[in-house]
C-alpha cells in the first residue's frame, strides 16, 4: 500500500483522514463511554446517513448544487446532535430515550431519500461500510478543520468535560456551565462521526468510538491514560484495517472494527493470564 499511497492522491487522502479519525473518535469516545452514552454515536451516525442520502438525492436531481453528500451529512449530524441534547432535557429521567428516537428518525429519512433517489447504489454502499478510495482533497480539508476545532476545544475544556463526566452535580455546583458544554461536546461528536463515516461507514462508526476505549479501560490507571491508550488502539486498528482492507478489497469499516475487536480480545486474555500469574505468585 505504501507505494500506492505515494502514487494515488485519493488513497493518501483516505490514509490521512484515517489517521485523524483514529485519534478523534477514541478521544471523544472516552468521554462518551464514561458518561454511559455509547449509543449516542449510533444515533448520530444514522442521522448522518439521512443527511448523506439527502445529499445524494439533491446531487441527482439538481446536479449544479455545490453541496456534496458529505456536507449534508455533517449538517444533519449536527442537527441530530442538537435534537438529542434537547430531548435529553425533555426526558430528564429517561435520557437514553433520546437515542432510539433520533436513530429511528434517521433511518426513516434515509429510506425515504434513498428510495426517491432510485435505490441503493455503490455510493451508498461506500457510506455504509467505508471505503479506501472515497476521500477527496476537499473532504480532507473539512476533516482537518474539524480536527483542529475538536482538539482546541478539548484542550481548553478538558477539566470541565472530565468533571462533568464524573459527577455532573458537583461540576454544576462548582460553577461549570454544564448546558453549554454539553451542547458543544455533542456537536463535536456529530462532526467527528460525520468525518469518520468516509472511512468506517455509518454502521461501524460507533465501534471506533467505543471498542478502543473499552480496551483501554482494562489497562489504564487514570483517565488521561485511558485517553492515550484509546488513541493508540484506535490508530493501530485504523492503520492495519486500512492496509488489509486495501489488499483484500474489503471495505475498511469491516477490517478496522475486526482489528479493534481482536485487540480487545487479546488485551482481555493477556490481562486475565497476567492476573492469574500474579495471583499464583
Amino acid at each position, binding site marked *: 500500500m505504501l507505494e500506492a499511497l505515494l502514487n494515488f492522491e485519493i488513497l493518501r487522502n483516505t490514509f490521512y483522514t484515517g489517521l485523524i479519525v483514529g485519534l478523534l473518535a477514541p478521544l471523544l469516545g472516552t468521554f462518551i463511554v464514561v458518561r454511559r452514552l455509547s449509543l449516542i454515536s449510533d444515533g448520530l451516525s444514522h442521522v448522518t446517513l439521512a443527511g448523506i442520502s439527502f445529499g445524494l438525492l439533491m446531487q441527482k436531481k439538481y446536479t449544479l448544487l455545490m453541496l456534496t453528500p458529505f456536507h449534508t451529512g455533517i449538517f444533519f449530524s449536527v442537527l441530530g446532535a442538537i435534537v438529542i441534547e434537547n430531548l435529553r432535557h425533555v426526558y430528564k429521567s429517561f435520557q437514553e430515550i433520546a437515542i432510539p428516537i433520533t436513530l429511528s428518525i434517521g433511518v426513516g429519512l434515509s429510506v425515504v431519500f434513498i428510495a426517491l433517489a432510485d435505490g441503493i447504489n455503490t455510493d451508498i454502499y461506500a457510506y455504509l461500510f467505508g471505503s479506501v478510495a472515497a476521500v477527496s482533497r476537499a473532504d480532507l480539508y473539512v476533516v482537518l478543520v474539524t480536527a483542529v476545532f475538536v482538539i482546541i476545544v478539548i484542550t481548553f475544556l478538558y477539566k470541565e468535560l472530565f468533571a462533568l463526566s464524573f459527577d455532573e452535580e458537583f461540576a454544576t455546583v*462548582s460553577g*461549570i456551565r454544564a448546558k453549554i458544554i454539553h451542547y458543544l461536546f455533542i456537536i463535536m461528536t456529530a462532526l467527528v462521526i460525520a468525518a469518520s463515516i468516509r472511512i468506517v461507514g455509518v454502521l461501524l462508526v460507533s465501534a471506533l468510538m467505543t471498542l478502543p476505549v473499552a480496551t483501554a479501560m482494562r489497562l489504564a490507571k487514570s483517565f488521561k491514560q485511558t485517553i492515550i491508550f484509546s488513541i493508540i488502539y484506535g490508530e493501530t486498528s485504523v492503520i492495519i484495517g486500512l492496509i488489509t482492507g486495501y489488499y483484500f478489497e474489503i471495505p475498511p469499516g469491516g477490517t478496522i472494527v475486526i482489528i479493534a475487536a481482536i485487540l480487545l480480545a487479546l488485551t482481555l486474555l493477556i490481562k486475565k493470564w497476567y492476573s492469574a500469574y500474579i495471583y499464583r505468585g
Partner: protein
Amino acid sequence: MSHLIEVNNVTHRYDHHKVLEDVSFTITEGDFVGLVGPNGSGKTTIIKLMLGLEKVQKGSITAFNKPIEKFHNKGHISFVSQKANSFSRDFPATAKEVVSMGLTTKASVWRPTTKKYEYLIFEALDRVNMLKYANHNIGDLSGGQQQRIFIARAIVNNPKLLILDEPTVGVDTENVEQFYQLLSQLNRELGITLILVSHDIGTITTHVNDLLCLNKSVHYHGNPNDFENMTDEQRSIIYGHTMNTITHHH
C-alpha cells in the same frame, strides 16, 4: 461573625406536593451546623436551593450577601453529595484526578498542570489522610476512603462553606467516628463553615454546635445540648409526630 446564608420564608413545591413551608434560618460563619430531619422532610431540597441547583419559588435566599440568583459560585460554597457514593466504580480515574476536579473553576483559561495546582491537590489529600492513595483508582478504594477523597475534592479550592448531604451513607460504622473527627478538624483548623445533612440525629448532636431540625418547616434551631437535655416528649413535639420513631443513642 457574618451570615453566610440567609433563608427567608422559603416555600417550595414539586407539582402540587409541598416539600418546604415558610422555612427561615441563617448560617453564621464558623458554625458546624447539623441539618436533620426524616426522609422526605425537604433536607435535600433546601440544600439544592442553597446551591442554586433549583430555583427559589417563594421567599428568598441570600448567599454571601447576594441574592442566590445573582450569586456566582467561584469556590465559596462547596459540596459533597449523597450521590458521591453511587458513582460508577469502573470510572477510570485516580484519586488525584478526582481531587483535581475541585480546582476546575479556579484554573484560568491557560491551565497547564502547574506545580501550584499539584501542591494544592496533594495538600488536600494530606488533610484527609489519603496522600498515599493519590495514584490509586477511585473505584478500588473503600467507601470511607472514597468519601475522604470527595472531601478533599470539596476543600481543595479552599471554600468558606461546605455542605455535606448524608456523607456517612456507605461508610462503615467504625470509620464514621473518624469521619466526624475529620469534619470537626476542617471546621476548627481551617475555619470552614459546615452544614451536615443527616437523618440520624443520634450521632450528629455530639459533633455539631448548631442544630437545625427540619420537617417541611423548621422545628428547632439552636444549641444541640439544649435539645439533648429535653425529654423525649418535648423533642417529639418540636420534631413533629413523624419523627417519634427516632431514638437517641449514647
